[in-house]
């Protein structure tokens, strides 16, 4: 019995030990995801392959049985050069790889493995885990830009399959399973090799490869068998009229290309030596005259889909039988095949805005058998690509799935009843600009206008509170009414809201009720992040959860549609909202939420692609409802400036947006606003990347016929003569708490606080350092600090044998930047601090500041720099480094201090300086995103919160991440484990004790008197 008991306790001990063996992912495991969230994305889908159990070969099926992965998935390659597997049911990313910075030429599923071709490298990936099986360099020499193509030859009868990968110069045939090179052949691509394009298509007995040299206008055809690399046929075809192979489509025996006029020319791959125009008889049969806009290959048997402005058509185009009426005119659609046989034809109806209708025809009769409508919210724009796939159900019947990419890059999946299964907000992988908006506050401190009399303020406050109360009541009523509706469109899972399609009116109300639940928290830590994506979409993310609160497509300006009428209608497929030059799409918060009865207002500046004219669109950043219509400006803009203060005169509190046109006319947006008083001058500067030129302008007000005219005069011009890499300016809202630094001897070093400084990094050839024995000559990076009011260069410095990537950050009186040291082959972090020579002066007649500089070795490559921002600027600053390894490192600014001494003296010690050490310390605890790696970081935004110690950090790129950053720890908040009960008990006990002892003492004194 005793032995048994011992055994039992021993087993128990072992069990308990195992219980302790959880993997620890962070310092405090319970804090994962508490104050931060991550949303991984892949980007806009460019290539998509389905991995379904419906394999075409028996081999593939057995492979899948061996792998044991019955979960259906789809593989995508995107514009972020990401290769990923996404669960077809769960919509989650199963695995994801970031390939090098070169476009993915194609992906193919062949013989149970996934193949990708990019940068001249053929890679094989395991489908289940995404492990790299092997990698083959198609070409010995790797060049900067590669065209490439990928084809898979699978013979259902023969067990032998081959993967063909080709660049413009070389073709390799590889056995898919082993990666063994079967044969290779050289392709003669012509002289302009670097720009040559290549495309290939498998035919029953091998492969056809077409290379095109746009400089010579020559096309070469190669037909290969599967056995050897000896070409069965080679032909050179002249095609000077062709601009790019992207205007061509290749099929089994025909190459169809579009000439500049939009008509189709065909080339027979088996026998043809020249392009032939489409026979008139066939053209008549097509039903549409063209001009055609695009040609696509579908279905694999010389079936092409032709798209024109008036519609799309599917036709069988066979160049070898060009005289015969072989064109089978079908409505446009997608043919779904299963084991080589057509099972479905999906036809798209409608223009795709807000939803499409698909007619599915079964293979027996190509007459529509059922109709499904795929509907989605209007903010997605139109359908850009449909990826249907068919499969066999358990019962033996055929079914299909449709994965759809919309204009905004979002990815939707529908089943064959038209029900949406999931949606991935891939548009958020293309965020261009971010602005944080405070949520409406529940307390009325900001209701009163400053500067009024006591009574007017009191009256204002009372009316404001009544307004607020009525608003709350209305909101409650609305919530009560909208509750069943809001339950209907409940969220599926985190981050992927399965929103129900709704007409605009109810969408507005539901978004209104959604926004109503967003109320500012006690410390203003909860904000809305309003983002604009490069596809012209606006969205608001909840900073606490990462959920999209509302989404909105920037509408096309209404005036344009009316004015251009039919032209706009015909070019509707082309016209879209796009970012301005250099991918800029600035957002301006013109009225904050602080002026309660007035709704907040934000404005986005973009342009429409058809005219290239700038477009302004205002919206309410809390609810996502547009204010007015989008406005198209008549003239091009040089620059825009949001005036930092609202004008108090009109009671609108709108900060005007100054727009500087290319004719140097200045207009305000909205037009009825007035410029606030109290500024000596309003200045604008422009950076011309192409001409390497910086120009400054000043606003000039002139009176003409009792009307104030606004124009700008050019005040300065600075030609840098070197390519401009990056620039950085201080954030206009930045608060500086202390104007100086206290030294060890208690004197003060005053900061050079010029809010109008601009830091510019330029690249030039290094003339000083001798060139290395191998490789290119060195380059040098020059950093300029320019006063943007006067155009004066305040300071500059050159780093020899250095190159980019450079990232700059400028805050308060300092500047931090990172660059690559070519000679030492390492990344460096440099810091400048500027101190005023004597006292503070106006920037126009200031003396040159004293600039302290120091450089440090950064042991990891860095992509992006940012700095933490707090409300009053009291908290120490942290520099945030987005490392290429995926971490975001928080580095205290004290480590980057040009006054760090080599020889430590007590005075420096008194000041709190650390002795200089060339390497920046990197600790894993400083990585604020612990194990949630963030790739391709495009930008980092820091936002001050109501807590002085805390600032919000939002990182965007391929992944989104938001967390709180506390550079000086949480000095203004009690710790979570603060013992309130104990403190309260002690305090109350002390109070009671003092009362009791007072009583006792009085009694004792009385007794003493009596005695």
């Amino acid at each position: 019995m005793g032995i048994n008991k011992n055994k039992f306790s021993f087993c128990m001990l072992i069990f308990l030990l195992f219980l302790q063996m959880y993997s620890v992912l962070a310092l405090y495991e319970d804090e994962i995801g508490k104050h931060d969230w991550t949303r991984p994305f892949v980007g806009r889908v460019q290539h998509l392959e389905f991995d379904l159990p419906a394999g075409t070969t028996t081999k593939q099926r057995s492979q899948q049985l061996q792998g044991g992965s019955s979960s259906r998935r789809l593989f995508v390659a995107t514009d972020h050069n990401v290769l990923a597997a996404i669960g077809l049911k769960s919509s989650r990313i199963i695995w994801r790889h970031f390939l090098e910075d070169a476009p993915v030429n194609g992906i193919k599923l062949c013989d149970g493995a996934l193949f990708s071709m990019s940068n001249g490298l053929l890679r094989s990936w395991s489908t289940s885990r995404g492990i790299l099986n092997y990698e083959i360099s198609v070409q010995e020499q790797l060049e900067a830009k590669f065209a490439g193509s990928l084809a898979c030859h699978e013979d259902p009868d023969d067990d032998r399959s081959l993967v063909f990968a080709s660049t413009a110069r070389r073709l390799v045939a590889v056995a898919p399973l082993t990666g063994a090179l079967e044969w290779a052949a050289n392709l003669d691509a012509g002289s302009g090799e670097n720009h040559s394009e290549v495309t290939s298509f498998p035919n029953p007995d091998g492969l056809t490869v077409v290379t095109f040299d746009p400089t010579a206008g020559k096309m070469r055809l190669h037909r290969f068998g599967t056995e050897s690399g000896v070409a069965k046929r080679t032909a050179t075809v002249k095609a000077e009229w062709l601009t790019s192979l992207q205007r061509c489509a290749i099929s089994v025996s025909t190459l169809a290309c579009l000439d500049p006029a939009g008509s189709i020319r065909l080339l027979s791959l088996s026998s043809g030596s020249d392009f032939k125009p489409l026979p008139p008889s066939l053209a008549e049969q097509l039903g549409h005259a063209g001009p055609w806009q695009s040609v696509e290959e579908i279905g694999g048997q010389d079936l092409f889909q032709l798209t024109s402005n008036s519609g799309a058509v599917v036709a069988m185009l066979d160049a070898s039988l060009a005289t015969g009426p072989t064109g089978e005119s079908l409505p446009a659609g997608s043919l779904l095949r299963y084991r080589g046989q057509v099972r479905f034809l999906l036809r798209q109806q409608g223009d795709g805005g807000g939803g499409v209708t698909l007619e599915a025809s079964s293979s027996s009769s190509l007459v529509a058998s059922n109709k499904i409508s795929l509907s989605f919210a209007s903010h997605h724009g139109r359908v850009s690509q449909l990826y249907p796939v068919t499969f066999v159900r358990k019962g033996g019947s055929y079914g299909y799935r449709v994965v759809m990419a919309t204009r905004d890059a979002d990815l939707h999946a529908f089943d064959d009843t038209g029900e949406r299964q999931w949606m991935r907000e891939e548009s958020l992988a293309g965020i261009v600009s971010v602005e944080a908006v405070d949520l409406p506050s529940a307390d009325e401190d900001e209701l009163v206008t400053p500067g009024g009399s006591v009574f007017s303020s009191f009256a204002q406050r009372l009316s404001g509170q009544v307004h607020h109360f009525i608003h709350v009541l209305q909101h409650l009523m609305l919530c009560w009414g909208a509750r069943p509706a809001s339950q209907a469109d409940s969220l599926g899972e985190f981050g992927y809201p399965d929103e129900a399609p709704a007409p605009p009116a109810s969408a507005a109300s539901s978004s209104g009720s959604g926004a109503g639940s967003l109320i500012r928290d006690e410390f203003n830590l909860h904000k809305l992040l309003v983002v604009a994506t490069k596809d012209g979409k606006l969205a608001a993310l909840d900073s606490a959860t990462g959920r999209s609160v509302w989404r909105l497509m920037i509408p096309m300006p209404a005036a344009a549609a009316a004015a251009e009428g039919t032209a706009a209608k015909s070019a509707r497929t082309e016209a879209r909202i796009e970012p301005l030059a250099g991918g800029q799409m600035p957002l301006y918060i013109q009225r904050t939420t602080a002026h309660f009865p007035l709704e907040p207002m934000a404005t986005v500046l973009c342009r429409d692609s058809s005219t290239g004219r700038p477009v302004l669109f205002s919206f309410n950043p809390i609810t996502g409802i547009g204010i007015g219509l989008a406005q198209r400006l008549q003239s091009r803009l040089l620059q825009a400036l949001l005036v930092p203060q609202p004008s108090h005169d009109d009671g609108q509190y709108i900060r005007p947006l100054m727009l500087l046109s290319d004719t140097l006319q200045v207009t305000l947006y909205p037009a009825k606003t007035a410029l606030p008083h109290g500024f000596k001058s309003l200045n604008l500067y422009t950076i011309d990347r192409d001409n390497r030129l910086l120009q400054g302008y000043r606003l000039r007000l002139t009176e003409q016929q009792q009307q104030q005219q606004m124009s700008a005069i050019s005040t300065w011009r600075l030609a840098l003569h070197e390519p401009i890499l990056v620039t950085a300016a201080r954030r206009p809202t930045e608060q500086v708490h202390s104007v100086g630094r206290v030294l060890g001897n208690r004197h003060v070093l005053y900061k050079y606080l010029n809010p109008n400084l601009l830091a510019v990094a330029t690249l030039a050839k290094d003339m000083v350092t001798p060139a290395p024995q191998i490789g290119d000559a060195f380059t040098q990076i020059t950093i300029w600090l320019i006063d943007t009011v006067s155009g004066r260069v305040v300071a500059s410095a050159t780093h020899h044998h250095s190159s980019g990537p450079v990232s700059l950050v400028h805050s308060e009186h300092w500047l931090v930047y990172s660059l690559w040291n070519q000679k030492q082959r390492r990344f460096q972090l440099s810091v400048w601090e500027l101190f005023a020579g004597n006292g503070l002066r106006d920037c126009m007649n200031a003396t040159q500041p004293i600039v302290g500089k120091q450089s440090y070795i950064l042991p990891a490559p860095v992509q992006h720099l940012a700095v933490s921002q707090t409300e009053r600027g009291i908290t120490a600053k942290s520099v945030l480094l987005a490392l290429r390894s995926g971490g975001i490192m928080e580095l205290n600014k004290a480590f980057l201090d040009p006054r760090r001494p080599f020889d430590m003296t007590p005075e420096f010690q008194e000041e709190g300086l650390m002795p200089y050490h060339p390497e920046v310390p990197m600790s894993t605890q400083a990585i604020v995103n612990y194990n949630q790696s963030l790739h391709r970081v495009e930008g980092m935004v820091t936002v001050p919160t109501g807590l002085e110690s805390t600032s919000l950090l939002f990182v965007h790129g391929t992944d989104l991440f938001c967390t709180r950053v506390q550079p000086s720890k949480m000095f203004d908040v009690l710790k979570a484990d603060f013992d309130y009960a104990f403190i309260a008990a002690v305090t109350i006990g002390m109070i009671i004790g003092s009362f009791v002892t007072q009583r006792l003492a009085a009694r004792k004194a009385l007794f003493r008197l009596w005695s």
Partner: protein
Amino acid sequence: SCEAAQSAMRNEPTAAAAVPNSASLAAAVGIRRRWAIEFSLLHHRSPASQSRHYDSLSTATAQLAAPAGYMDRPPPLAGGREPDGALISKRGWDAALGPLKQLPMNLFIMWMAGNSVSIFPIMMVLMLFMRPIQAVFAMQATFAQIEGGQACLQRFVYLIGNLAVLALAVYKCHTMGLLPTYESDWLSFVDSPRRTEVSGGGFLL
């Protein structure tokens, strides 16, 4: 006779209260003498002989010697009533120079305390401040005790002495860095300059 002396002390509590420390003892000299203790009889007795004496005490009470401080004749009241002028001035100088005499001691203590701002040096500095300030507040009472021809000078010297101690305390504060004498101490009151010229822009749109 011992008890008698004690009872004599008990009967004169005011005089005992007026002699709290050595400093004010000198000041108390000027007061009319009420009683006196004669210690001379005890001085030449060794402890051994004393025990013998107690032995004999039990047997022969009549032969007892007078107890300590006992005198047959009454205390010389007349001599106290008319104090010596030189003595008054001496006592006056003692009172006046008291604070100055403490100065070296205070200097030493402050040197020992060090310049770190921690609880003990702070307490010491506070004590250093308290004493002269208290003395200045109690100056009327002290000045009342100083009499004689040089009273004015003595009062002045007394004041100077207290001020010197105060100065020492202030200097100590200075060396500890507690005085806002540098511009760094006023830095947080300096407002950051208001932005009058606005500038903004960026890459060409």
